[in-house]
């Protein structure tokens, strides 16, 4: 692919950061960044290069109505946050579970923590619950399966970006006793994730696994490639 050319990558990333890239080209470039760590790093280098200009800008407090408008749009504020709610939350258990299990990679862990921050631990709102955390071979958390606060759907999403080439797909499998059951193909990007029926998730103690398959998924209906990630189901939503 032509984007393998480091000179071109550098030039495109430079225009992206400078701001002269036309909107449609920039949208395409946003997708490249999401998929390709080399682009990501290039953009970071350029952005760090120009950052002193923004750091030198004279800060100006925005009017309070801006924050009020943001709050109104992101949902109810946590009114009270009793410690109890935090300790009882499934998030807390899951944090310790995966923390204990993994000598976790900083990058992935940071992405997960931000993800959790963003999920909003508001005791007044219903909590999503973690169904499973899938780790890579080194034990680092790489994917998270969680159920919606209400309802019978489970979403499986990457914690940060997972790299994969266009000739392959990540395929999700349910393993509970018998042969693995295919659950669908996963996007390498953290948002929005694959949504599956909660009834398709193995019962507590079963396993969710992700294998590397040819693009489009396993041709046989059973895993054909290596299992790259797996995790025990520790709380089936049903």
């Amino acid at each position, binding site marked *: 692919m032509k984007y393998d050319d480091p000179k071109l990558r*550098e*030039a495109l990333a*430079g*225009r992206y*950061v*400078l*701001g*002269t890239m036309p*909107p449609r080209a*920039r949208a395409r470039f946003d997708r490249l*960044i*999401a998929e390709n*760590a080399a682009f*990501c*790093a290039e*953009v*970071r280098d*350029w*952005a*760090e*290069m*120009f*950052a*002193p*200009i*923004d*750091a*030198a*800008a004279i*800060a*100006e*407090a*925005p009017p309070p*109505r*801006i*924050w009020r*408008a*943001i709050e109104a*749009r*992101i949902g109810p504020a*946590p009114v009270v*946050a009793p410690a109890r709610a935090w300790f009882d939350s499934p998030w807390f258990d899951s944090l310790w579970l995966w923390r204990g299990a993994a000598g976790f990679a*900083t*990058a992935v862990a*940071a*992405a997960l*923590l*931000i*993800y959790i*921050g*963003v999920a*909003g*631990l*508001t005791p007044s709102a219903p909590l999503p619950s973690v169904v499973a955390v899938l780790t890579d071979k080194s034990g680092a958390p790489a994917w998270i399966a969680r159920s919606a606060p209400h309802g019978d759907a489970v979403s499986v999403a990457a*914690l*940060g*970006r997972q790299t994969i080439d266009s000739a392959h797909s990540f395929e999700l499998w349910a393993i509970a006793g018998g042969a693995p059951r295919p659950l669908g193909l996963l996007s390498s*990007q*953290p*948002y929005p994730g694959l949504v599956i029926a909660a009834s398709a998730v193995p019962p507590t103690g079963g396993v969710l696994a992700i294998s590397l398959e040819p693009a489009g998924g396993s041709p046989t209906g059973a895993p054909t490639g290596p299992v790259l990630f797996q995790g025990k189901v520790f709380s089936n939503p049903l």
Partner: protein
Amino acid sequence: MRRVAGGDRRGFAELYRQAAPKLFAVALRITQRRDLAEEVLQESFVAVWNQAGNYDPIKGSVMIWLTTIVRHRAIDQRRRRSNLADATAGSDDALMSLAAGPSDRADRGAELGALSRCLDQLEPKPRQAVLLAYVHGYTHEELAARLATPSGTIKSWIRRSLERLKRCLDG
């Protein structure tokens, strides 16, 4: 940022409290209008809340990531309106003194460090083009009008200037 990472909405409020004033200044500098800058800031933070899973430490510091989001939204706002080049033509933004060359801004040199030194190595007009693009979000067309130079020339100035800046800062 640790607070956001630590897991609750108050962390997000803290992130806003710390980052919003600089980001608001950046949005104002590009949109040149308070109402639009306010909208950019609001939209950016809502997007950050909804998509923070997309943040990856490989993208650099959180502030740099946020700045890129705000700058691009501000530039989009700016592009929706025409003739902005006129509105910023008389801007006395202190940073624009950078475009004038080394003698005008001895005191800002230290703050901007290596970037400033490398900008000095560019020819005056290409330097001005790069700074107008970054600082105020000028498009190629606006730069062409402002600097009375064909758009094709502007594009090659920018391309060459970016290459030189990169080499200078890497070296």
